[in-house]
Each structure stands twice: as structure tokens, then as C-alpha cells.
């Protein structure tokens, strides 16, 4: 399936834009997506952490992703 992945903060610089379109396996888990992104964008490994948000909430590693979900890469936050 084809996913559009939103990027924020430093992830935007790593992706070279505020979103990226990627082809991933169907029924991909959050954990698999993280691995896949780390391979594709090795600079993600330089971050102390990055999380995946699915439909505006922090997703657990085992959660399955479908094509209609809103997916985002969340590097360490620094608001306030």
C-alpha cells in the first residue's frame, strides 16, 4: 500500500519536506514502519527517539496501519 507520512520538526529536514509518500507492505505494523523509515532515512537514528502518530494519537508498536490512516513522524517535542 502507499502511505503519505507527515513530518515535523527535525524530521521535516531529514525527509526534505513536510511529507513523504512511501510504498510499504499491507498490514504493516507501527514497529515495521519505524524500522523501514530508519533504513530509508538513516539520519533518524541520530535522534534520541522518534514516535509514530496514527490518526492524531501516539501509536503502540504493534498497531497495524491502513492506507486511510493519517500517519506522522514525531521527533522529540520541545513546546512550552
Amino acid at each position, binding site marked *: 500500500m502507499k502511505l503519505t507520512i507527515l513530518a*515535523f*520538526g527535525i524530521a521535516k529536514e531529514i525527509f526534505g519536506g513536510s511529507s513523504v509518500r512511501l510504498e510499504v507492505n499491507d498490514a504493516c505494523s507501527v514497529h515495521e514502519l519505524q524500522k523501514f523509515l530508519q533504513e530509508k532515512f538513516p539520519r533518524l537514528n541520530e535522534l534520541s527517539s522518534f514516535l509514530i502518530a496514527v490518526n*492524531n494519537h*501516539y501509536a503502540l508498536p504493534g498497531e497495524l496501519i491502513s492506507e486511510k490512516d493519517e500517519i*506522522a513522524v*514525531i521527533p522529540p*517535542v*520541545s*513546546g*512550552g
Partner: protein
Amino acid sequence: MTNIQITDQPLNMLSCIEWAMDPKCGGIDAFIGTVRENTKGKKVLRLEFETYESMALDEMKKIAEEVLQKFEVYKILIHHRTGVLQVGDIPVIIVVGAAHRDAAFVACHYAIDELKKSVPIWKKENI
């Protein structure tokens, strides 16, 4: 009662605090974050705050609801500003109204700590 907002306009301290005032409340604690001239020893001129707005609003609402459940407080307001801010500008205001002051302090401190952990907002230096 909760009052959550993300805006690119300057935050209005007075109206934020007045929102939390209530005949039932005897104590209001307000945290006002301001842009400091130094971060980790580096001189700061301005910062840019970026947000994943839909998710940030959800996370801010979650924090506010949790605060109302966890602590003896009546009202909580969380406003965050985005865009380019200068030294002295106010990126965040949290106001808590409670019958008694101890709950107001604890709840307000908790809310800003949680905001800094979970709300998808990012500050960028060197802009």
C-alpha cells in the same frame, strides 16, 4: 471546564487568567512561559514554534481532562502560540482555578510538565 487553544497571535494573559476566575475558586495559579535570551549557554534572538496542530490540540485536551480528574480543580486553560517569537514573547500560558491553592499549584505544574513531554510542538533556533 477546559479552555484549549493554539494560535499564531500573541497570547492575552489577562483574559486567560480572567477566564479561570470563579466564585467557587479561591486560588488561581498561572504559568507563563517566556522566550529566554539563553538556552544551554547559547544566545537566543528568536525561536520558531511549529506544531502538528490537530494532534497537539488532542494532546492538550487529554492533559486538561486528566488534570480535572486527578486534582481538585475546577478550571484549566492551556494556550500555546506558534510562529516566530522574540525574546520575552510568551509561547505558553497555563491557568488553573481551584477552591484551594495547593491543588492549583500541583495541577498547573503537572500540566506544563506533561505538555513538554507529549504535545507535538517543536521549537527551532537559528532562524
